[in-house]
């Protein structure tokens, strides 16, 4: 019988998975002990102890190439379609508002507010689902507000000038639709980054990240041009494309998109700085224009007034977006290729491990022994998965059962891991 001729070979066949997956002889030793292989078995295999037996098993184990990681194909449709939701909601709302008769003013106002709130919620769902933006989200509000009403305010504030201002509806529509390219580019970069994290070379990772980042930015810039063009071609009567103000709204998609990208990769501070710059420039312009009304301070409003007179009211948001977007782009290109910038997305998220109720530790199977020790006598031989021990000489019908329950064992192992203590040792 081959088993008696080479007991190690039968052992190897019995624990093939364990030996193939192990990275270290000691890992095999731990697994063997947990499965009930003890010194007696080692002696039968002519080994001094389980450790030297494990070493032989490790040396003799066949290691199949690891199967490639499955690509996340599911929900691709949802990922593509969901970013269009804010734009669709906004368009539907504007269309409805336009259909209401002008005398139903309260109804129009209510519908406008409802539409705005729904659109904002949809934007939050699309952009903030995976990465809460924190203060960057708050800092994104002033530029958005300026894109909607800022031009009119500036026109009102500038003394003695009347300027053509764009339609707020068109600006809102463009902003809502620019969420889609922002989300797509962000997701594209995230996917590419996940693939890049598997490359073995830091230099390769940095170069790949930089290229991928620039490609995404280019894509974003192109995609942001699509909504204004479409609006110009379709020219719906309820969102007339007038003047350059809607274009400034579309341009705001650039810093917002870069900020969303940075937030997704944990660089909230940089994103907040860029958005603060955009909002700051716009607010300074408004403040200077407003200061012109104060006696003796008319000179303060001069530069803004000259600029607006020369290039139109949209020059202020465009300049602000250029400044903020430039800062964000430079920051992203400098910071994102660094591997340490991606620490915020750990392989095993620590938050999951730290989020359990206080009572859980005592019922945790992985803390079997310490629980035994710490809570004096509540000795419950745990559903000791890692300690599972089939008898070394199984009963006749048990051996059959064992050969068929290997799946059961693996699922139990996985369950064990999932239910690990939140405070389990990190290292």
């Amino acid at each position, binding site marked *: 019988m081959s088993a008696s001729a080479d007991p190690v070979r039968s052992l190897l066949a019995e624990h093939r998975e364990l030996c193939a997956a192990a990275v270290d002889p000691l890992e095999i030793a731990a697994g063997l002990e947990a499965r009930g292989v003890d010194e007696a078995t080692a002696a039968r295999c002519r080994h001094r102890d389980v450790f030297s037996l494990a070493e032989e098993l490790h040396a003799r184990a066949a290691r199949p190439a690891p199967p490639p990681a499955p690509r996340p194909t599911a929900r691709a449709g949802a990922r593509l379609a969901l970013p269009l939701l804010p734009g669709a909601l906004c368009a539907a709302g504007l269309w409805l508002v336009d259909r209401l008769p002008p005398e139903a003013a309260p109804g129009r106002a209510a519908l406008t507010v409802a539409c705005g709130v729904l659109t904002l919620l949809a934007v939050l769902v699309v952009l903030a689902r995976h990465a809460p933006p924190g203060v960057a989200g708050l800092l994104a509000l002033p530029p958005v507000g300026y894109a909607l009403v800022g031009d009119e305010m500036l026109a009102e504030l500038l003394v003695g000038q009347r300027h053509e201002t764009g339609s707020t509806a068109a600006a809102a529509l463009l902003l809502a639709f620019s969420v889609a390219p922002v989300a797509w580019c962000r997701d594209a970069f995230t996917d590419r980054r996940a693939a890049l994290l598997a490359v073995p070379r830091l230099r390769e*990772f940095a170069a790949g990240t930089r290229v991928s980042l620039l490609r995404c930015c280019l894509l974003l810039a192109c995609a942001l041009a699509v909504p204004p063009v479409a609006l110009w071609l379709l020219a719906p009567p309820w969102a007339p494309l007038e003047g350059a103000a809607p274009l400034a709204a579309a341009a705001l998609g650039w810093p917002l998109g870069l900020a969303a990208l940075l937030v997704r990769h944990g660089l909230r501070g940089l994103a907040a700085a860029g958005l603060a710059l955009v909002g700051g420039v716009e607010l300074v312009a408004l403040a200077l224009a407003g200061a012109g009304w104060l006696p003796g301070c008319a000179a303060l409003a001069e530069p803004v007034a000259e600029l607006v007179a020369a290039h139109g009211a949209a020059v202020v948001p465009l300049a602000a977006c250029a400044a903020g977007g430039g800062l964000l782009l430079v920051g992203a290109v400098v910071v994102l290729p660094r591997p340490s910038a991606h620490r915020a997305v750990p392989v095993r998220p620590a938050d999951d491990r730290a989020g359990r109720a206080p009572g859980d530790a005592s019922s945790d199977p992985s803390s079997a022994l310490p629980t035994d020790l710490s809570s004096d006598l509540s000795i419950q031989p745990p559903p000791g998965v890692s300690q599972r021990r089939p008898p070394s000489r199984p009963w006749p019908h048990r051996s059959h059962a064992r050969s068929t329950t290997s799946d059961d064992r693996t699922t139990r192992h996985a369950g064990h891991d999932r239910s690990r203590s939140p405070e389990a040792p990190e290292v």
Partner: protein
Amino acid sequence: MRVALLTEGGYPYAQGELVAWCERLVRALPRHDFEVRALSRGRQQARGPRRPLPPQVRLVRTARLWGPPPGDRPSRRAARDFAEAFEELTAGLTGDAGAGGGVADRFATGLYALADLAAAHGGLARWLASDQPIAVLEAACRRPGAPRAAVGAGVGDLLAVAERLERALRPLSLDWYAGHPFDPGLGKADVCHAVGGGPAALPGLLARHFHGTPLLVTEFRMRLREHHLSALAGAAGHAVAPSAARAPVRALLAGFQLGLARAVYRGAQLITPGDPRTGRWQRRCGADPARQRPVWPGVAAGELAACADEVPPPPVPTLVTAGPLDEDADAGGLLRAVARVRAAEPAARLLALGGPAPEPGAVPAVRWCPPGAVEHRPASGAAERAAGWAAGTVAVLVDARGGFPAALVEAMSCGRAVVAVDAGAAAEVLGDAGVLVPPGDPVALADACLALLRDPVRGARLGAAARARALDRFSHERGIATLDAGYAELAAGRVAAAGTARPCRRLARAVPGPRPAPGVLATAEELS
């Protein structure tokens, strides 16, 4: 004597590992001054409740092994020095023996060099969170002699490893070693007692490195073994287990665990494994058997014995075992043996203590036992467990998990004759105070039980012997006494060694000063 108790993820936090054990130890030794230095493993634990401290605890200091890295960004020069030392450490981590000395030497050299630099430059954690250690790890994976699994490490794997190492090495950046106005520092302690061999032992190792404080390491679960078991639990059979670390991460972290374990066992003057298996693993990782001294986790043997004496013997022949009865505890064999016993003694029944009744069909052999033959009794707390064990005529222990067989020791303390399956540490614990049967042999198990049921005199004799053995060897008091002796031994050795070099200090120590009022030092609390 001043004992620094070093814990990780446990005492004085109310929730965590070995809390009750540490508390018992501290309360049982009021003669010593304890300073508890705890590393917390998570926000929940750190913000959670703590155990009330007895007056002999003079000082509590905590640090966290979680959250963003503390400290300042290191200077360029410090970063260069850190990188050199870290390179040495990673050479030991990936098994590169180098020109001089072995792998363990390089790891320990790097570790101590990092500690020296961290003390000089004020903290290492921020550097470990930067790009440089990742580059060093990348180079380490490409060195000849690196583990096969580590060769394919991607940037993401290196990031994961660097993050874990940053957390594990945080004790290097602590300010526990030199003295402060409110904290005399680990150098002033007579003994460092590390509960656990992982990061908890690092402060002790460094105190020994900086000041020569002797180190005692208590280990109930060997950290390297735990690491491998959790890795197996995540990886077994799954192509991509949801939470499993990839093979390169496991390999590199296993290398770190091994290096740390070797450094700890080499640096510790006294190592107390909790059971024979842990002792074996420790020796495998370089522990000197001469410095090993087993300290069993123990059970409250005296309390159990007192409670068991108040319970009358059962009216029918009863076998009692530790529940729950499931496949893991090898319940099938036990139930088959019970069926065999009932064939000879129809009145006999089985009582399973603790755990829920098994679901129908969970244990295939349940059909062998007629209804009513098996009773399940939930039992928690000393009194209930003692009553449960005492309600049996013979205790049967088939659970052959490794580690400390606490249920077996409970049964022994309650003075019942014990039949145990010869697996794990059962033979060592039971000795000749009970009957051992070979594993996987229900006939032998049934025969042994029948023999004891039919011979009450022999049963009583074995029970008394088992109780005496449990009280003598496996009570809590026994383990604490061993540790106390270890403290005295280490402190004496220290005083003798330090006496020649620093006679003044020895004189100063000879006259005990007035104890500070309790609570004065214990308020010195710091979250770094």
